[in-house]
């Protein structure tokens, strides 16, 4: 009797979760994130009327920055490190397909990020309560957007991780994430480089995932509504880009020799 594909994916995911929670780098980053959230409390003391905005702004930025660092630095090692160390050999000699391994790794780190964001969100709410603010459900919409962006970072990190070394994969993923956060610059490239061909600008704009789509921080901080339709759209956007990245990763890993 054999395990189903889902069972195997869950086995890899739970082991990946166990691996990530035993990584020292995770705790370092989480501690920094909490410190940054708390620093929002101190900064809010400097402003009489804007204290709530500052706490929210700094708290969400901390989740964004440190979540991205966790997704990137742990994500790039998930496959390349295992290829280098040959720890995949005994696993792939088991009834485990390479795509199941990738999906399990993705799900495992995705769950770690969910737990981390959950803890940091709770910290942010506690900070807001400490300043006398009530619960604000809108904040969760911004956190959801952040989480989608982080999942996409993991998918990209896994893709590069199957293609090259951890260091190079980190550089490539970081570059793509930064480019994706400045996608407006790509769109306005012809203003800076007048000779740039339109097709190239369009290609770059659509090929680079637009991480600004996941950013609802400003709307939440300034009390603007975040429509459900907008959240649904970015969910589809993240799913489509994530699926493409993971499919490419699977294609790269499928016939790769693991000497």
């Amino acid at each position, binding site marked *: *009797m*054999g*395990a*189903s594909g889902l*069972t*195997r994916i869950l*086995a*890899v995911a739970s*082991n990946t979760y*166990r*691996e990530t929670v*035993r990584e020292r780098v995770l705790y370092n980053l989480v501690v920094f994130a909490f410190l940054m959230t708390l620093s929002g409390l101190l900064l809010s003391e400097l402003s009489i009327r804007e204290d709530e905005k500052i706490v929210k702004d700094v708290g969400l930025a901390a989740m964004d920055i440190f979540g991205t660092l966790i997704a990137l630095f742990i994500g790039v090692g998930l496959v390349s490190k295992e290829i280098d*160390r*040959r*720890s*995949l*050999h*005994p*696993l*792939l*000699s*088991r*009834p*485990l*397909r390479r795509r199941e391994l990738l999906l399990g790794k993705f799900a495992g780190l995705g769950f770690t990020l969910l737990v981390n964001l959950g803890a940091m969100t709770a910290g942010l709410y506690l900070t807001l309560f400490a300043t006398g603010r009530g619960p604000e459900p809108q904040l969760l919409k911004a956190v959801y957007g952040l989480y989608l962006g982080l999942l996409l970072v993991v998918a990209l990190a896994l893709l590069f991780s199957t293609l090259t070394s951890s260091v190079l994969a980190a550089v490539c993923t970081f570059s793509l994430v930064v480019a994706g956060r400045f996608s407006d610059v790509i769109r306005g490239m012809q203003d800076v480089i007048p000779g740039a061909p339109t097709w190239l600008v369009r290609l770059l704009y659509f090929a680079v995932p637009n991480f600004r789509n996941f950013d609802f921080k400003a709307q939440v901080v300034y009390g603007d509504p975040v429509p459900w339709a907008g959240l649904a759209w970015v969910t589809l956007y993240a799913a489509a880009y994530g699926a493409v990245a993971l499919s490419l990763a699977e294609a790269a890993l499928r*016939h790769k*020799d*693991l*000497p």
Partner: protein
Amino acid sequence: MSGTPAEVVLEVRNLSKSYRAGHLRARLRPALKDLSLTVRRGEIFGYLGPNGSGKTTTLKILMGLVFPDSGSATILGAPLEDLSWKYRAGYLPEQPYFYDYLTAREYLDYVGRLCGLPVSVRRERCARLLELVGLGHSTDVPLRRFSKGMLQRVGLAQALVNDPDLVILDEPMSGLDPLGRRLVRDIILDLRRQAKTVFFSTHILSDAETLCDRVAVLRAGSLVATGHLSEILNLDVSHYEVLATGGDLDPLGGWPPGVRGHEVLGERVRLEVAEEALLPALEHLRDRRGRVLSVNPIRQSLEDFFLAEVAPREGAWELQD
């Protein structure tokens, strides 16, 4: 074995594999050339060859870790691409590396989950196997604190976690002390008693001679010989080795014809004696008041075979294993 031949559990047909070497002016270096072999149920099959002869490459192809340039293989009746045979097989890689953040018990449990074993079976089997490989006292110690030999034992335990019909071991004695090697030998022999099939690579010939029903010998990616040891080796007695001590044993003179060599080892003398000269040599020893310590018939060993068939072409071994 008698009667009809046992079921084929592993069949390799015309496998070839080359690795790309170099970057700027990359060239292909053949690691395996047109390899074909068959392993039957219940056998202990030794896969022999010097370092770089292609043993590990073969096993990695079988395990789906590297892909052959040409050829095919079936394991337990299924093609390599099929996952079904992996539920019934176990594999110990060469110099295994396991997740060092896990304990031995956690690692075996993880492998058991991948094989679809229920929790209760995993719990019982992990404890039993760790006890079997002598790690019963270290089940909850992180693997990062294990020595090389202990990791090799964990590797053997994980290969057996699904109670496999076919066990494939890549250099199973590597990194083990004499006690560990004895343990692995006992486990392999016990697997045969359970009618399991063991296919293992080694370059330690004494292990193969002690354990194997059949062997295949590889040199520079090509099969040199395959079959029962009696088919590969000349098992006729070539000469006798006589060890004697005491008396007036002048190693330099007076020996009957047929005593081909004599060597003084401290207070002992070692003689190489042709079969027809054995009795005169023993009488000569008695006349000189010598004491015979042992008389051993000498047959061709795997080492002799290796030295004769494989070693002269050592220059051709520089291939990636």
